[in-house]
């Protein structure tokens, strides 16, 4: 059963915005009525032609991928012992050189939380210019979000509700992208200057891995007061590519928040083309724009 607090938050977040047409109609009539009731000569339509109601910029919360990125970027600064299987600087170079990447993402405790793991998760495909995320519930595709950054177009489909939306990103959205994790190369730039510690070796799904971790929290990583933070990344000794990233943060004003992110099933160095990942909109889907 879904926590009641989630529903309360959703209701509080619920916000229907008036249209420009409605603003003109309502305020025009209201001001006219006010003038008439006070015996003044009614003015003409007084309402400004356009009321731009921009969404407030909220700091990106629990960007699991961002935090993961943080870890990724620091490999260059981790010492590599002579006997170690992974050369961290090379990992950073490989990640940076990868054109595209896909991975499976599981988040808990946040807005994009996945319930009923492992049957609910997201599959993310990203390149420097394209992004597609597919959400799965009980292994069934439930939602798709596709972003083409050069053209600033976003396509969102809700497969459960058979609805879709097409939007164009604003300058603000594009600017924000520079602060978020959107491509493998971005991982590197986001990850500088954190303190890392080596985790040694272990085998994951039959693959010998070497790990690195951090507890180095920085301002702006999370939107809530953090009590504890840890991130770990495991890299294949054989290929030198990351295969598992785990992030966990706890905190909140009452200490009740616990958010985790797990990224796995990585495929690095993919050529991601628009024709391959741009979603088709089924004819029976309704546009909600």
């Amino acid at each position, binding site marked *: 059963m879904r926590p009641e607090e989630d529903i309360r938050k959703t209701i509080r977040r619920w*916000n229907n915005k008036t249209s420009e047409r409605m603003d003109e109609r*309502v305020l025009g009539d209201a*001001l006219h*009525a*006010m003038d008439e009731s*006070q015996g003044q000569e009614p003015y003409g339509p007084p309402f400004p032609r356009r009321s731009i109601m921009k969404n407030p910029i909220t700091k990106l919360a629990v960007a699991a991928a961002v935090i993961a990125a943080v870890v990724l970027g620091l490999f260059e600064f981790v010492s590599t012992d002579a006997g170690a299987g992974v050369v961290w600087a090379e990992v950073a170079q490989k990640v940076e050189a990868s054109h595209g990447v896909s991975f499976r993402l599981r988040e808990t405790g946040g807005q994009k939380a*996945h319930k009923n793991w492992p049957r609910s998760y997201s599959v993310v495909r990203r390149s420097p210019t394209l992004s597609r995320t597919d959400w799965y519930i009980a292994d069934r595709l439930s939602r798709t979000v596709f972003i083409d950054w050069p053209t600033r177009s976003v396509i969102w489909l809700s497969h459960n*509700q058979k609805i879709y939306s097409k939007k164009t990103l604003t300058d603000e959205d594009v600017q924000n992208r520079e602060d978020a994790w959107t491509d493998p190369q971005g991982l590197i730039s986001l990850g500088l200057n954190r303190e890392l510690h080596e985790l040694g070796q272990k085998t994951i799904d039959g693959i010998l891995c070497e790990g690195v971790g951090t507890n180095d929290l920085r301002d702006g990583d999370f939107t809530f007061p953090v009590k504890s933070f840890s991130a770990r990344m495991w890299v294949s000794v054989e290929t030198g590519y990351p295969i598992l990233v785990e992030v966990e943060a706890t905190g909140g004003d009452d200490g009740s928040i616990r958010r985790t992110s797990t990224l796995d099933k990585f495929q690095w160095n993919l050529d991601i083309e628009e024709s391959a990942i741009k979603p088709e909109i089924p004819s029976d889907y309704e546009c*909600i724009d």
Partner: protein
Amino acid sequence: MLEDKLLVLKCRRGNREAMRRIYQKYKDLLLTVATGLLHEPAEAEDVVHDVFVAFAQSVEKFQLTGSLKGYLATCVRNLALDRIRAKARRAEGPRPATPSPVTSDPEKDAVATEELIQLQEAMSRLPYEQREVIVLHLKAGLRFREIARLQGVSLSTSHARFRYGMDKLRSLLNGEVQQ
């Protein structure tokens, strides 16, 4: 609260800018409340329109004793109820107005929009009295005591309606929204 009193005072003196500010301040909230109660965008807009026009007509003699937000939300509630009583609701209405999430991340935006659409649809399936308590309490910020007075019921009934409504919402949304 103090700002609202000043705005009302200015409106009483015919200050049009003050009326504009009141409208700007509460228009989205009132539209959301009206949409939550009526579940029909066009009717919700009409209700908000009528509330503001009536407020403007009477502002010269208006005395603000409580919160302006609560007063306007109560007006929206009363007009919405009039409309509901005036006509039998259709079995299936149009899709509610698309709500606007407050985020600039396209993926979070999609998640939030989908969640809010599902919430609106689930809300529309609640009995009106329960929906009213939930919207007025959580969205308009009215206290249970005020809502009970509006509904002409006891405080405990108001609480119970909220509880039953939330339980039903949880049931309706279970497994559908969270992903």
